[in-house]
């Protein structure tokens, strides 16, 4: 397909690898923030092409993985209610709560539906006015504009039977948390290109300046990633920090102002707990007061929730690049994609699943 195949070309990849070998005179440690990039790198084997010494560690950019257990438990409690239609992106269905997941709740009779777009949930609410439709609003700056539009639309249509369980998170505070960790080894970032289609990269400029790191906005195909790594390594070798853009075909410095405007109208920034990372200040979105009527947390009182993380899962260390998945004792034994113990083994963007899919045991 156009705008994909060109960036999967093995000859272009080989040229970039050769250039990278020539450019890297010292060991460097880079972090790709986004779980989609982790999958291309690890499951696709792109990281094996990198010259020795250029190491990729994997960041917290897996929305499924960082959604706290408490939020999963809240989703399960709401989905179990009679009369509720619970709509979600497909990859949330197998994320383990304390004892169960949405898929099991559906098998036990709850009306849990996978939707492609948040607007599909609004359409269900329009068609079935006698049911309470709840959408599970998770994800980074890439999905927030879609959920914002769904809420705006529900408000325009004056729908009273639709609400959103909001657990949106923002990328820059997570990068800040990684760089501020005393044990941090990350010397440069590949920023998630798709988040930047919305946000642009202005927010990364102060981070790059404060921590003196190169940040390269990077796409998702193998050639994009290799080019992003090459740009980051050249910046490191030259002692340059600042933001560069590999993903010029879809990302501009200002991102998408129309999308940002509706996100700012429907949501407000809030502190949010990240699975494995704890509460990060100003790291998430919740509904703005004008849209509070659509807040599923207000609409459904679910009482006290359990918040215990699954015992033995080291997702927190994996999500901050401190632990490679195969180094977790449960990896591939007690924890597999068929029987995941933690979210990073479930998601198509989780690092543990990427290593498992790529057959990596080391």
């Amino acid at each position, binding site marked *: 397909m156009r705008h994909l195949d060109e960036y999967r070309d093995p000859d272009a990849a080989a040229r970039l690898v050769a*250039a990278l070998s020539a450019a890297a005179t010292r060991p460097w440690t880079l972090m790709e923030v986004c779980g989609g990039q982790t999958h291309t790198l690890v499951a696709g084997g792109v990281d094996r092409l990198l010259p020795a010494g250029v190491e990729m560690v994997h960041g917290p950019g897996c929305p499924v993985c960082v959604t706290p257990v408490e939020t999963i438990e809240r989703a399960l409690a709401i989905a179990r209610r009679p009369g509720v239609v619970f709509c979600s992106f497909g990859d949330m269905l197998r994320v383990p709560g304390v004892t169960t997941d949405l898929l099991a709740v559906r098998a036990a009779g709850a009306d849990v539906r996978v939707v492609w777009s948040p607007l599909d949930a609004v359409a269900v609410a329009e068609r079935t006015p006698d049911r309470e439709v709840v959408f599970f609003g998770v994800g980074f700056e890439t999905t927030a504009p*879609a959920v914002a539009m769904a809420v705006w639309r529900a408000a325009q249509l004056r729908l009273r039977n639709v609400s959103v369980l909001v657990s949106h998170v923002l990328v820059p505070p997570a990068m800040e948390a990684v760089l501020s960790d005393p044990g941090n080894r990350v010397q440069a970032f590949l920023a998630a290109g798709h988040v930047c289609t919305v946000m642009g990269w202005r927010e990364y400029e102060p981070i790059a300046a404060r921590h003196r790191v190169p940040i390269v906005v990077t796409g998702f195909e193998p050639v994009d990633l290799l080019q992003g790594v090459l740009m980051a390594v050249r910046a490191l070798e030259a002692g340059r920090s600042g933001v560069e853009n590999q993903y010029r075909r*879809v990302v501009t410095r200002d991102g998408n102002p129309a999308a940002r405007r509706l996100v700012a109208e429907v949501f407000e920034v809030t502190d949010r707990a990240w699975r494995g990372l704890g509460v990060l200040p100003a790291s998430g979105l919740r509904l703005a007061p004008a849209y509070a009527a659509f807040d599923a947390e207000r609409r459904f009182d679910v009482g006290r929730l359990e918040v215990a993380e699954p015992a033995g899962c080291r997702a927190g260390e994996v999500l901050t690049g401190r632990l490679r998945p195969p180094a977790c004792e449960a990896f591939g034994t007690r924890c597999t994609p068929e029987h995941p113990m933690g979210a990073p083994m479930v998601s198509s963007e989780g690092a543990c699943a990427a290593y498992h899919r790529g057959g990596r045991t080391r």
Partner: protein
Amino acid sequence: MCLGVPGQVLSVTTDALGVPSGRVSFGGIVKEVCLAYVPEAAVGDWVLVHVGFALARVDEAEAARTLAALREEGAADAGERAPGAP
């Protein structure tokens, strides 16, 4: 869910709320996509789509420049590895 996919706009309409949407082809699979955030998108354009929403129009000129830079990378690299180079 952060996986964006490029697709080509086949048709554009506007709904009762004034929001543009369109039929977008992903290598032959056609889906309805909200175009509210890329109102400039026209039939034939390529857009990057996430969870049913186009978030950016693919800039053909920039794409061509990136691919040209990749070809030059090969040439530059051949230069770096020329006999006599360190």
